[in-house]
């Protein structure tokens, strides 16, 4: 019964979590945001007391139930492990294994150190985002599952179009960042292989959240225990334990690794495995706990020694990394090269030069300009705030309906979101990213607030402007600027009737990228946005 409840809850949460990432309509974000906000690492980074208290209490009361019903990455592994167990002869493929104490503790300390260093200094939290289970789930869902989901949607849209229905509409499907895609793929394959092989081995050896909750879950109020009076030492519970934390010979359960899945309860034919309030009356449990506690205390002492040295190593490693970043890793083609040939070429099919009717001008895709300072979305407050809080779960990237947010390729902000305007611009009615961010990297804002938050400043590139290049009037940027930050002024100051070019009022520009995206100059726009390191209101 308990096991069935656990599985039902896990299914529900997993579906909600995956819908939260995959939904591109924005309809579910407000309703499902809690799924991300309850996740431990984002909650720590966001300083969200409510979530922390909830997760803490849950674990103190019931053990690592979090890992079984709240962590979508854990649930995913359960699914894979279940499938693996369906193979012939693999129904009871587990057996008790020793805890990989050093690995667990080192990784936890690295992550804790990274969070502390980043909050007091300016250290990147890449290690956190690489190890955080929520971030990994988000990346896998956004990079691997979302394209499939969107492809399916486009198929439906194709059908709908032929049925004159407006129920579905096509969306763009493309890989937004090769790095984020690669990381997601490697993690998906790695985790899948581990889960296929040994169930929750990732959660109990690598995952820092697992290790941390393992600290709290040693003596939960409600706990799984083996009633030695009923136990026949048949060992079936051990073989069914995907955490490999039941030692059936000794009758002990390592609750730092137990994810409270209740598989053992259902497996036991003698009713010996129970989930109940911890009580010394139960023979054997007390002694087992005492034994374990002593073991643990020794282990911790050993580890503390090792780790004090490690902290220093981490810091020096990080310093090194930062040094490397000063080099611009991804210098794209220089803007100077942007003076593109006019795309305008009427199709000439006649022997005689006649301007014929019809046809379409070829479109040239926009290329990303070199931005000296990256643009982070409104609500992020500053590049630093983003860098400190973001676990790179890609939820905002997935939520952005305008194709503006993409994962960064710079090492110090690797896979964290930044804005770019080749495929769209930050539209005035949209605050989707601020609604989904669980980590306090993008704080909740309203469209009204957003209209006054300056995330960047526009710059005009004289040589790209079609007014200069094609000698035609153009008012595109001026007409579409939502804050009227662009005025058109005569190109030739001496001649008030000469063609007009844009002049940008930096005190009004909010860096939304409307001008950059709509600019008719391709592949490089004649007006582009540089990010503001710290956002301000206009």
């Amino acid at each position, binding site marked *: 019964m308990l096991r069935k409840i656990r599985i039902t809850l896990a299914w529900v949460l997993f579906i909600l979590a995956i819908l939260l990432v995959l939904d591109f309509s924005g309809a579910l974000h407000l309703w499902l945001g809690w799924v991300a906000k309850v996740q431990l690492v984002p909650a720590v980074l966001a300083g969200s007391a409510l979530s922390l208290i909830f997760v803490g209490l849950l674990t103190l009361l019931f053990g690592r139930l979090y890992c079984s019903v709240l962590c979508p990455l854990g649930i995913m592994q359960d699914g894979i492990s279940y499938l693996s167990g369906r193979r012939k002869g693999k129904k009871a493929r587990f057996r008790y294994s020793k805890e990989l104490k050093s690995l667990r503790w080192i990784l936890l300390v690295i992550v804790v150190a990274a969070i502390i260093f980043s909050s007091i200094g300016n250290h990147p939290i890449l290690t956190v985002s690489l190890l955080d289970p929520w971030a990994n789930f988000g990346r896998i869902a956004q990079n691997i599952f979302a394209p499939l989901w969107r492809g399916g949607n486009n198929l439906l849209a194709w059908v709908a179009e032929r049925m004159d229905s407006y129920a579905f509409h096509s969306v763009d499907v493309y890989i937004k960042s090769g790095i984020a895609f690669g990381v997601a793929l490697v993690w998906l394959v790695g985790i899948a292989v581990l889960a296929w092989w040994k169930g929750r081995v990732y959660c109990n050896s690598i995952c820092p959240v697992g290790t941390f909750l393992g600290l709290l879950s040693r003596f939960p109020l409600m706990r799984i225990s083996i009633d030695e009076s009923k136990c026949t030492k048949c060992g079936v519970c051990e073989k069914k334990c995907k955490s490999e934390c039941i030692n059936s010979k000794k009758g002990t359960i390592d609750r730092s690794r137990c994810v409270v899945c209740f598989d053992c309860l259902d497996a036991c034919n003698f009713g010996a495995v129970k989930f109940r309030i911890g009580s010394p009356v139960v023979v054997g449990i007390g002694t087992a706990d005492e034994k374990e506690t002593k073991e643990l205390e020794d282990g911790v002492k050993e580890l503390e020694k090792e780790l004090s040295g490690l902290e220093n190593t981490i810091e020096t490693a990080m310093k090194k990394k930062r040094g490397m970043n000063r080099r611009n890793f991804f210098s794209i083609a220089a803007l100077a090269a942007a003076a593109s040939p006019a795309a305008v070429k009427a199709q*000439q099919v006649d022997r*005689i030069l006649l301007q014929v009717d019809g046809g379409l001008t*070829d479109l040239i895709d926009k290329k990303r300009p070199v931005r000296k300072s990256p643009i982070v979305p409104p609500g992020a407050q500053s590049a630093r705030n983003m860098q400190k809080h973001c676990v790179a779960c890609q939820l905002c990237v997935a939520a952005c309906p305008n194709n503006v947010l993409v994962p960064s390729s710079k090492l110090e902000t690797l896979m964290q979101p930044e804005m770019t305007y080749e495929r769209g611009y930050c539209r005035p009615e949209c605050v989707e990213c601020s609604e989904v961010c669980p980590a306090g990297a993008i704080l909740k804002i309203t469209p009204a607030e957003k209209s006054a938050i300056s995330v960047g400043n526009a710059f005009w590139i004289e040589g790209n402007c079609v007014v200069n290049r094609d000698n035609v*009037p153009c008012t595109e940027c001026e007409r579409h600027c939502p804050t009227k930050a662009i005025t058109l002024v005569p190109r030739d100051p001496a001649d008030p009737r000469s063609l007009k070019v844009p002049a940008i009022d930096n005190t009004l520009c909010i860096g939304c990228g409307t001008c950059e995206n709509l600019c008719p100059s391709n592949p490089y726009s004649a007006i582009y946005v540089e990010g503001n390191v710290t956002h301000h209101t206009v």
Partner: protein
Amino acid sequence: MKKTNKDITRRDFLKVAGAGAVVSVAALAGCRPAGTISAQGGEAGDIPTDQMTYRTNPHSGDRVSLLGYGCMRWPLRRNEAGEQEIDQETVNDLVDYALAHGVNYFDTAPVYVRGWSEAATGNALSRHPRDSYFVATKASNPRGPFDLEGCKAMYRQSMDFLKVDYLDYYLLHNVGSSIESFHERFVENGFLDFLIAEKAAGRIRNLGWSFHGNPEVFDYVLAFRDIQWDFCQIQLNYQDWQYPIGASVAAKYLYDELVKKNVPVVIMEPLLGGRLARVPAGAQALMRGLHPQDTPAKWAFRYAGTPESVLTVLSGMVYMEHLQENLRTFAPMEPMNEAEYAILDDVSDILANADYIQCTTCEYCMPCPYGLDIPQVFAHYNKCVGEGQVLHSSGDEGYRAARRAFLVGYDRSVPKLRQANRCIQCEQCLPKCPQGIKIPTEMERVDAYAEKLRQKLQF
């Protein structure tokens, strides 16, 4: 030049049979005994091959089918390289079918379909006896060439493409923007004199012109040097007859003037680029009330074909279904009666009050140098107007559905980078529009509407 269906050769007949197979449904319907309608179908009606209405050109004696084939919108396909090209096989099928059912007037121009129309039309027509069709083409030089040699080359090229050694109908294309332009294109360079000489030599059988623009220019050209024009092509439909919208001139005035001068009239835009084929529901109700089976297009064609001095009504038929529907209208054509005219008065009131952009999708404005698909943007907007999907206020009933239909349909029919918000207002298209649409202004209007919906603003 007597062309009736009895003259169809066996060879032609076989070709027609082949073309007919393409449209099996209609062909099957055609096999049914005339007038039988049953629960199994047969509503579509027969397409007779010998019932076409003809009109006679008083100057040349040509017996011209009242339905003329406009060759401005031939079907396109993608070739192996992914480039667009004319779907010549389909063009052949359409031309064969049209000829077999009595259509004998084909109107093309050097600039149509990106300059491909003349060759495609010539390829299809040259497979038939030269005396089985009349072909019309044009001096399409509103934007040059202006020198006599260039103009002559254009004229000769038309004959090459059409594979003929004489042209039945030759038009000064799109006259009417200004008297100066008429002089520059035809008078000062001696091109008109050359064409008159060609007519005398028999290489042009009928000389005329097509008109868009200012009535003063119309009067001027009609009276120019007392030339007896053999025909004139004007825009005529029930919306443009007396109180046209936009830059059109009242067709009644043009028609009456032409009758006075004994100039037969060729009708273009009888459907206003298809807009009169998709009328709002209120107008539909009026029309269907009288003739439940007749489409709005049939009404519009009959309206254009009824006046006695109309020589032919041009329709750009891209699909076999269009051709067949029009053949049903014109073979034979039943003239309009007073009750029907009264209904069209009411319909045209409804249309005048609707929010249409007066685009006929002629594509003269294309290609837009900044990538817009101007006719598609307007077509989408007009489609939504026709369906009653364009909202007057955000409080309108059905706001959500209409918003979705407009925005989703917009993205489907026009790629994002070719939509109205990409118009930079460079105004290069302005002089090219024969309907005088202020394209940049209309683009701003469409975009403002789309933006209101996207941002869910109150309006």
